[in-house]
Structure formats: structure tokens, C-alpha cells
């Protein structure tokens, strides 16, 4: 009897051993939550995952890389340093990006969501493809300051990343393409389409706008939607909105990329989704509050080179009440479902 028990026990151990799975690094994610989304009424995205197919393992690798400080030259800065999940992946309370060796950049870190609809990236539109976007901040000497090859070598030497790359791609060889595509699976799946405004538009959950929000929406549609166009709340164009040139940064904007004089001082129209969570505002973070932003548009605007013709040089004629209504409306664009989505949070915490 004892013998038989021991034999069965031994078989059991053998079988269990043969079937052992690697411990999960994170809680498993339901696969159906990791799909491309095109909300009803939205245009087709610029980037689809037809070649770079989505998998949970690629997402997990991409998320690890997004929060990986080894992507910077001195292992201190990750993408997540300046793109915080609770701020819709903007950098809360930071006018401009903070990088290695306490260096500061010249531009405000924008929120990250709905990226697959963006035709180009960065405030100056210098990057033409979502897969290449991470190379910008990684190589910028004011941000992460790293050459891509030493980063690849560091990842290759790490048993954690050997394991993550093997799971995502079937072998553990780290290449720039594998790295960038996994990051694209993570970044591109950060969608924002569940704000109060979205529920209202979709007539879901009996959500109604308040009177102030409704008045703000009407003012917004009449005055702001030419550039901040629904449903993404950006036309992704390049405009000068009348901001005077900061004498310290001397940032000439889009002309830096195109060399065309008509692009001087133009910057990409930001989406206004989650705008209540992504302060400070403008390409250099010069405004701390939405009130200041509205004041900019109602003040007389200097007749700057390439000022967008839709902007009245004597300022928009909004009353104090108008401004408060517009701000009330802008608050309806906050997507609390995204802000609390643990799939996108730093897995190290």
C-alpha cells in the first residue's frame, strides 16, 4: 500500500514538473481587452495592427519597456517619468520635460492616448510614424540621452527582458524593431473614448450635460472646433495660436522640421480630451490653468508671424460666464475609465 502511494506520488511530481508553467510577472489580462478599437463615428486610424499583431505578451513587453529606466543613458528616466498614467500620460505640474542629469527640455510632455489616429508626432510633427516615436525622447540629449544600440545591449543582457522578448516573439534576440513594435502595442492601445461627453453623445447611462456644460459646448462648437475638431478634438494641423515667442527657448516650431518659412512658430493642435488632467498647457507649459488659456484667447493677440487667420487679433469676445461655461464643458472630456485603467499602470508598483 505504502509503496503504491509513493509510486503514485512520484508520478504526480513527475507529471506536475513536466507541465510546470513560468510564474506570471503580472496578473493575466483578458485578451479581449487588448484589441484595436474604433469607436462608433470615429475615422479610420492611421495605424492598424495588421502587421504588428497584438498579443498579451507583446503588450506586457511594451509596458515593461515604457516604464524601463534602462532606456536612458544613466538608467534614471523612463517614458513613464514624463508620461504619468494619472495625468492621462502627460507630466503633471511640469512645464517642460525633465531628463537625465537634471536637464530640462524646451517642450511640455503631451498626454498619450488615441495615438493611432495621429498622422505625425511631437509638437513640431517631426516624427512620422508611431513605431518611431520612442526614438525621439530616447535619443534627445535633454531627455533620455541614449543611443539605441547600448539600450539594446542592456536589454539583451537582462534575464527579465530575455524572457519577455522570448514570450512576445518566440526568441530572445533584442532588435530595435521588436522593441519599437512592442512599445507601439502598448502605447497605441491607450484609448480615450469614455468621458462624460462620450457617454452623452452615445446616449449611454442616461448621461446629460449640465446647463453650464451645454452652454460651454455650444460656445466651443462655434469658436474652437475648427481646430479642436471632434471626435479627437484636434485636426492634427499646425497653427500659431498667438503665443509670443519665449525669449529663452526661442522655439520656432514646425519650421525646424520643414524648413518652410510659413511654418515658423506653428505647433501641432493638441487634443483637448483629458485637458483638465494634463496641466500645464501649451507647447512650453506656460499656462498653469484652463482659466489662463481662455484669458490668452480673449486678450488682444499680437499680430505674430503666421498667426492662424481664424484667431481674431482683438481676442475672442467671451464674457467671464462664457469662459466658465467653456471650462465646464472641457471638464466633461476627462476619461476617468482611462485614468484608472490598471493595464496601463507601471507594473513595478
Amino acid at each position, binding site marked *: 500500500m505504502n509503496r*503504491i502511494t509513493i*509510486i503514485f506520488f512520484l*508520478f504526480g511530481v513527475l507529471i506536475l514538473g513536466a507541465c510546470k508553467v513560468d510564474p506570471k510577472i503580472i496578473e493575466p489580462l483578458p485578451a479581449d481587452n487588448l484589441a484595436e478599437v474604433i469607436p462608433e463615428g470615429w475615422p479610420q486610424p492611421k495605424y492598424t495592427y495588421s502587421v504588428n499583431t497584438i498579443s498579451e505578451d507583446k503588450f506586457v513587453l511594451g509596458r515593461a519597456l515604457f516604464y524601463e529606466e534602462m532606456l536612458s543613458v544613466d538608467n534614471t528616466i523612463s517614458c513613464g517619468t514624463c508620461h504619468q498614467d494619472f495625468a492621462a500620460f502627460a507630466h503633471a505640474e511640469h512645464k517642460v520635460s525633465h531628463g537625465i542629469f537634471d536637464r530640462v527640455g524646451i517642450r511640455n510632455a503631451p498626454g498619450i492616448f488615441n495615438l493611432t489616429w495621429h498622422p505625425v508626432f511631437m509638437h513640431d510633427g517631426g*516624427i512620422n510614424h508611431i513605431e*518611431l516615436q520612442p526614438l*525621439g525622447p530616447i535619443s534627445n540629449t535633454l531627455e533620455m540621452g541614449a543611443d539605441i*544600440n547600448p539600450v539594446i545591449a542592456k536589454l539583451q543582457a537582462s534575464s527579465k527582458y530575455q524572457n519577455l522578448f522570448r514570450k512576445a516573439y518566440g526568441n530572445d534576440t533584442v532588435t*530595435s524593431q521588436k522593441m519599437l*513594435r512592442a512599445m*507601439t502595442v502598448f502605447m497605441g492601445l491607450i484609448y480615450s473614448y469614455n468621458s462624460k461627453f462620450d457617454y452623452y453623445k452615445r446616449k449611454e447611462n442616461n448621461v446629460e450635460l449640465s446647463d453650464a456644460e451645454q452652454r460651454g459646448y455650444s460656445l466651443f462648437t462655434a469658436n474652437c472646433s475648427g481646430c479642436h475638431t471632434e471626435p479627437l478634438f484636434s485636426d492634427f494641423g499646425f497653427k500659431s495660436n498667438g503665443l509670443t515667442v519665449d525669449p529663452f527657448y526661442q522655439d520656432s516650431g514646425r519650421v525646424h522640421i520643414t524648413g518652410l518659412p510659413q511654418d515658423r512658430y506653428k505647433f501641432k493642435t493638441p487634443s483637448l480630451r483629458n485637458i483638465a488632467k494634463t496641466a500645464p498647457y501649451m507647447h512650453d507649459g506656460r499656462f498653469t490653468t484652463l482659466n489662463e488659456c481662455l484669458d490668452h484667447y480673449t486678450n488682444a493677440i499680437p499680430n505674430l508671424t503666421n498667426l492662424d487667420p481664424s484667431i481674431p487679433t482683438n481676442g475672442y469676445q467671451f464674457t467671464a460666464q462664457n469662459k466658465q461655461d467653456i471650462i465646464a464643458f472641457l471638464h466633461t472630456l476627462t476619461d476617468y475609465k482611462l485614468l484608472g485603467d490598471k493595464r496601463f499602470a507601471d507594473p513595478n508598483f
Partner: protein
Amino acid sequence: MKNTIKFIPLILLLVVLSCKKDKKDPEPEPDPTPAATTNTIKILFKHTVDTSTLVLNQNYVNPNLDTFKVSVLKYYISNIVITKNDNTTYVEPESYHLIDVSNISSTTISIPNVPFASYKSVSFMLGVDSTRNCSGAQTGDLAQNKGMFWTWASGYIMFKLEGSSPQSGASNKGLEYHIGGFGGVNKVQRNFSYTFASTPANVSASVSPIIHMSVDINEFFKNPTTINFATQHTQLSAGVNAKMFADNYSDMIKFEHVNN
């Protein structure tokens, strides 16, 4: 009890079976080797300064009579097409090659699977076509970690020459030319096409031809614009100045001969 013991061999058998590796079917008899119908053509790029062979970090004289050294010379050759005597063509698939003078093997491009025929001409692009400049993360010679991609303004550096000159106006006496820009009037890709004159490249079972090209670096410094290192020592972005250098290199590569 006894019954249980009787089952043990059965359980053993089951366990063994469940762990058994899939036995491969016996290898099918290979077909008799099919007669080859293709072979390889090679394109060899020899680098010179005027008629002297280019050696990295040695002194040469440019058309402006300035002394200079080259420390880095890398450029893309892409979209290779070879044309038969009957005007049909062989288009190399995934035709992107990074020539790096510091890596001698990269200076010969091997094009496998070229059908047997007599070929009279070759054409290719210096640079990378605009499509691949807009296609995201790439592999092989186009991977974004070859030091040939602008991360701040997406696009390939099509041609990179770095070095030094006592006449350079740069504080470190350096020369730094990163020539790129893939679209619009200032694009820097240039197309080259050559006919092999009297000697076609005859691809056959026994012949793998070598097309010899020469690349004269001094052509980069002249015609139509003679470069003066005192003021023209650095070019690191796309635009009208990059186009000026591209116009200079548009006659830089010359056909020498075919070895059959």
C-alpha cells in the same frame, strides 16, 4: 488492491506514451536535384579620391585644394533592377543595402536567384525610397539602429561622410555631412543607370558575374558646387543645402566593367 497493482503497467504505459516525442515520418526521398536556373550577380563598389583608392583616415586633396581625411563613409544603395538583352528585368526583392567603407564585405552587394540570361544594364537608387522612410520600424540594413536614421525628424540619412580638414571652419576642424530628406523638391535620393557596353553580364550555372563600379569621393565635393570646407563643413538636416550635396553626388558612381 491486486487490481490496482495490475493497472500500474498500464498507467506507466500511458505516462510514457504521453511524454513520447512526436516521431517524425520518415524523410521523403528528396527529389533529384532540380537543374539550377539561377545564379548570383555581385555589384562591387570601389571607393576612390580621384584615381587613388580611398583609405580611411589618410590625407587627400579636394577640388578646392583643401586637405582632408575621411573617417566614416556610409550610404544606401536600393531598388536594384537588372535588365536582360530582351529588355525584361529582374527586380531584386527587398533591395536595401547599406555600404559602409569600414566594413569591406558591405562594399560588395550579392544578388542571389538571378535567372540565367544575358544582362545588359543595371539601375539602382542612392538612398532609400520615400515609402520606406514612412513605414515605421524596419529590420536588416534599414533597422533604425544603424546610425543612419534621424530620430528627431523621421527619415534616413541616405549618405554620411565624416572626417576632418585643417581648412575646416568648424572649431574641431571636423567635416560632417549627413545627407537626407526624402520628399519634395529637396529630396536627396538619386537614380543611377548604366549599360554594360560591349560586355553583358552572362548569368549561367558556371558564371556568377561581378559588376564593378567606382565611387569617386571628390565628385561629392564638386560639380555643380565646389565645396569650400571653410564654410561648408557641416550638413545635418534636410533642405536646400542637402539637395546641393545630392546634386554633387549624382555623378559620383561610375560603371567600370563586368567580370564574367
